[in-house]
C-alpha cells in the first residue's frame, strides 16, 4: 500500500482536529441546552409546590389534624385518615365535631350547599399518600402516575427531589416534596411535561446533523489552506530545485528563515556546491584531454612531413629492390599516420566551439564532391536520389561534404565486389533527411551501439587492411552533433546497412 504523503497526513490531521472541536462544541451546546431546559422546568415545579409547603395564613382549622376533605365518615371520601386510619376511615368518632368547610353543608339539611367565602379548601387529590399538586400545566392529571419511592425517600431527607417519569408515553418531570410536619399525607408532588425541552433538544440535534456535513467541509477547507501555507516553503524549494540542471549548476536554493526548511535548503545548497565542483573538475579534465589530443596531433605534423619527404627522396635514388621495398612500406605507414593525425585534428576542431559557416548547399553538389574519386575505382553504382532536384541542405559545406564522404567510404568498404550505394536526400517535417544505403556485408547487432567510438572497428580482423583511420564515424557523429542533428544506423548481416542522418533546418 502506498504510504500517505506528508501533505495528506497534515491535511487529514488538521481536518480531524478541527472537526472534532466542532463536534465537541456541538455536544457541549446540546448538554447546556438540555440542562437549562430542565432547570427551567424544575423551577416551575418548585413554584407549583410552594403553596403545599407554605400554605397562606387564615386557613384556621384547615391546618390541623383534619386537613382537607370531608370527614372520614363521609361517604365517598377516599381520603386516608391522617390519624393513621385505614382507607375506610375508621377512626375516632368525630361525627359530632365537624369543622365548617366551604361548600360543605355539614350534613345540615337546612343549610344549602352554598359557596362559602374564602379560598378553595378542598384537599388536593393524592396517590398512595402523596398529594398530587397542580403543576404549571393545569390539565395534566397525574393520579395514575406511580409513586417513585426513591424520590420520596430523597425528598424526606433533602426536602425536594426531582425525577423524570413516564405516563402514557409522555415524559414528565416530577418534583417530590415532603409534607410539612403534622400533615395527613406524607408528601406532595407536581409534574410538568418535558415535551418543550425535548423539542428544544431535538431542534439542537437536527441543527447539529444538518451542520455536520458543512462542518466537515469547512474543516477540510481550513485544513487544506493551512497545509498549503505550511508546506509553501517546501513547494518553493522544489520549484527552484527543478530549474537546476547540468547547465545551471551554479544556481542555489533561497534560504528563507531559520526553521527546518531553511536548514534543509542550506544542506541542499551545500550538496550542490560539491556536485558543481565535481562536475567542474570533470569538465576541466575532459577539456584538458581534448586539448592534449589536438596538441599532440599538431606536434606530429612536422615529423610526419619530414619522414614522408625523406622517404620520397630516398625512393628516388634507391638502388636495390630490398631498399625500395622497405622505403615503400615506410611510406605507406607514414601516410596512414598522417591520415590519423588529420582526422584527429579535424575531430579536435569540430569539438571546439568554433562556429560553423551555415549555408544552403545543393544536395547535388554535396554528393558530387563527396563521391569524387570513389565510383571511378569500383565496379558498383553510386547514385543520388533527391526530390526536388534543387533540394538544398543547410549546414557547413566542408563538414557536410566530409560527413557524406566518410559514409560513402564506409559503404564502399562494406561491399566486396558487386553492389549498389544509394544516397537519398529529402525534406521531412522541416528537417533534411539524408540516407546512405549499401547492399554490403552489414554490421553485427552487438557492434551497432559502439559505432562512432574512436578507433572502433566492427570487424577486428580488418583493422590493418582497411583504408580507414578508425575515426571516420567519430567524425561523422561530431559533425552531426554540431549541426544539432541525429544519426541512426540500421543493419542486417549479409543484407546491408542504412545510415539515416537528420539535420534540422
Amino acid at each position, binding site marked *: 500500500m502506498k504510504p500517505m504523503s506528508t501533505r495528506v497526513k497534515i491535511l487529514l490531521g488538521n481536518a480531524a482536529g478541527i472537526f472534532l472541536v466542532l463536534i465537541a462544541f456541538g455536544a457541549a451546546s446540546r448538554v447546556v441546552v438540555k440542562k437549562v431546559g430542565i432547570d427551567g422546568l424544575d423551577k416551575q415545579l418548585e413554584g407549583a409546590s410552594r403553596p403545599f409547603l407554605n400554605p397562606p395564613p387564615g386557613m384556621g382549622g384547615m391546618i390541623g389534624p383534619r386537613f382537607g376533605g370531608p370527614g372520614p365518615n363521609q361517604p365517598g371520601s377516599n381520603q386516608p385518615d391522617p390519624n393513621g386510619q385505614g382507607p375506610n376511615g375508621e377512626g375516632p368518632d368525630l361525627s359530632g365535631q365537624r369543622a365548617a368547610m366551604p361548600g360543605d353543608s355539614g350534613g345540615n339539611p337546612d343549610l344549602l350547599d352554598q359557596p362559602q367565602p374564602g379560598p378553595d379548601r378542598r384537599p388536593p387529590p393524592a396517590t398512595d399518600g402523596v398529594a398530587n399538586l397542580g403543576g404549571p400545566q393545569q390539565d395534566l392529571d397525574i393520579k395514575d402516575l406511580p409513586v417513585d419511592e426513591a424520590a420520596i425517600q430523597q425528598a424526606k431527607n433533602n426536602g425536594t427531589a426531582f425525577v423524570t417519569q413516564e405516563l402514557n408515553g409522555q415524559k414528565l418531570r416530577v418534583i417530590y416534596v415532603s409534607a410539612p410536619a403534622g400533615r395527613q399525607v406524607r408528601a406532595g408532588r407536581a409534574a410538568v411535561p418535558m415535551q418543550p425541552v425535548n423539542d428544544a433538544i431535538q431542534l439542537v440535534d437536527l441543527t447539529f446533523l444538518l451542520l455536520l456535513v458543512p462542518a466537515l467541509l469547512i474543516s477540510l477547507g481550513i485544513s487544506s489552506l493551512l497545509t498549503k501555507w505550511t508546506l509553501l516553503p517546501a513547494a518553493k524549494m522544489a520549484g527552484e530545485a527543478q530549474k537546476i540542471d547540468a547547465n545551471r549548476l551554479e544556481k542555489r536554493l533561497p534560504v528563507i528563515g531559520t526553521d527546518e526548511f531553511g536548514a534543509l535548503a542550506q544542506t541542499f545548497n551545500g550538496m550542490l556546491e560539491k556536485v558543481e565542483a565535481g562536475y567542474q573538475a570533470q569538465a576541466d579534465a575532459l577539456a584538458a584531454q581534448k586539448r592534449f589530443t589536438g596538441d599532440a596531433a*599538431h606536434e606530429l*605534423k612536422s615529423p610526419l*612531413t619530414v619522414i*614522408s*619527404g625523406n622517404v*620520397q627522396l630516398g625512393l628516388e635514388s634507391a638502388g636495390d629492390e630490398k631498399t625500395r621495398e622497405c622505403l615503400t612500406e615506410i611510406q605507406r605507414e607514414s601516410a596512414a599516420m598522417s591520415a590519423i593525425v588529420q582526422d584527429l585534428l579535424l575531430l579536435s*576542431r569540430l569539438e571546439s566551439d568554433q562556429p560553423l559557416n551555415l549555408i544552403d548547399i545543393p544536395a547535388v*553538389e554535396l554528393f*558530387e564532391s563527396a563521391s569524387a574519386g570513389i565510383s571511378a575505382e569500383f565496379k558498383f553504382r553510386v547514385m543520388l536520389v533527391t526530390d526536388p532536384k534543387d533540394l538544398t541542405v543547410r549546414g557547413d559545406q566542408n563538414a557536410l561534404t566530409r560527413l557524406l564522404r566518410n559514409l560513402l567510404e564506409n559503404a564502399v568498404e562494406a561491399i566486396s565486389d558487386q553492389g549498389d550505394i544509394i544516397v537519398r536526400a529529402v525534406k521531412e517535417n522541416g528537417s533534411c533527411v539524408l540516407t546512405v544505403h549499401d547492399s554490403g556485408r552489414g554490421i553485427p547487432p552487438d557492434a551497432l551501439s559502439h559505432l562512432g567510438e574512436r578507433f572502433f572497428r566492427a570487424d577486428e580482423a580488418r583493422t590493418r587492411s582497411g583504408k580507414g583511420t578508425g575515426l571516420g564515424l567519430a567524425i561523422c557523429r561530431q559533425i552531426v552533433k554540431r549541426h544539432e542533428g541525429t544519426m541512426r544506423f540500421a543493419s542486417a548481416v549479409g543484407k546491408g546497412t542504412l545510415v539515416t542522418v537528420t539535420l534540422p533546418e
Partner: protein
Amino acid sequence: MKILIIEDDPGIASVVSRAVESAGYESRVEPRGDSGLEEALKGGYDLIILDVMLPGLNGVEIASRLRAKGTTIPVLMLTARTEVENRIEGLDAGADDYLPKPFDVQELLARVRAQLRREHVHRARVIRVGGLEIDSVKHTVHRDGAEISLSKREFDLLEALASNEGRVLTREVIQGSVWKDSDGFSNTVDVYVGLLRKKIDGQFEKKLIHTIRNVGYSLEDKDRS
C-alpha cells in the same frame, strides 16, 4: 633557379632543400625570420618557400614587407595552421600559394613548378557588376552591401558568369569550366542557375542573371529582352 627556404624546423628545412635540389634547383635555408627577410631583400631568388611560425619575425609579416618593397617574387607559404582565416591572412598579405602541414613533398614541388611557370597575369581579385561584389580570394559575395552565402560550386558558377560579364555562356562551356573534373548530371547547370538566381536575384528587383533561350546564360547589369 634559386629558391630561398625560410624555415626553423631543421627536419623540414633539410627535406625540402634536398627535394628542391633533386629537382634541379639551388637552395638556401634561413632558420630565422629576420635573417630570412634580409636574405630575401638581397635579391637573386626566383621563389621563396616561407614558413609562418618563425622566430624573430613571422611569415605573414615577412610577406607583407616584401610586397611593400615591391618585390613580385612568388611566395609559397607553409604552415601547421590550417584554419581558413590563416589561409586568407597569408594570401592577403601577398603569398601566392599556401600549403598546410603535413604536406607531401611531391605536391610541394608541383606547386613550386606551377609558381615558377606562372605568367604574372593576376586575375582581378574583386569583380563588381551592378551592385554585386565578388571577392575571389575570400570567396565572399555581397549585393548592395548584404552578404550572400553560396556553396563552392555556386560561387564558381557565379564567378564564371561574372568574369564573362555581358557574354552569353552555353551550357557546355559552363559545364566544362565549372564542373571541370566530374561528369555531372545532364541538367545540373540549369538546376544550379536556378539556385543561383534565387540567392542572387531573389530579393532584388533588378535581375542580373539572364536566360537566352536555346543559347545559354549571361550575367549583365541591364535588361535584355
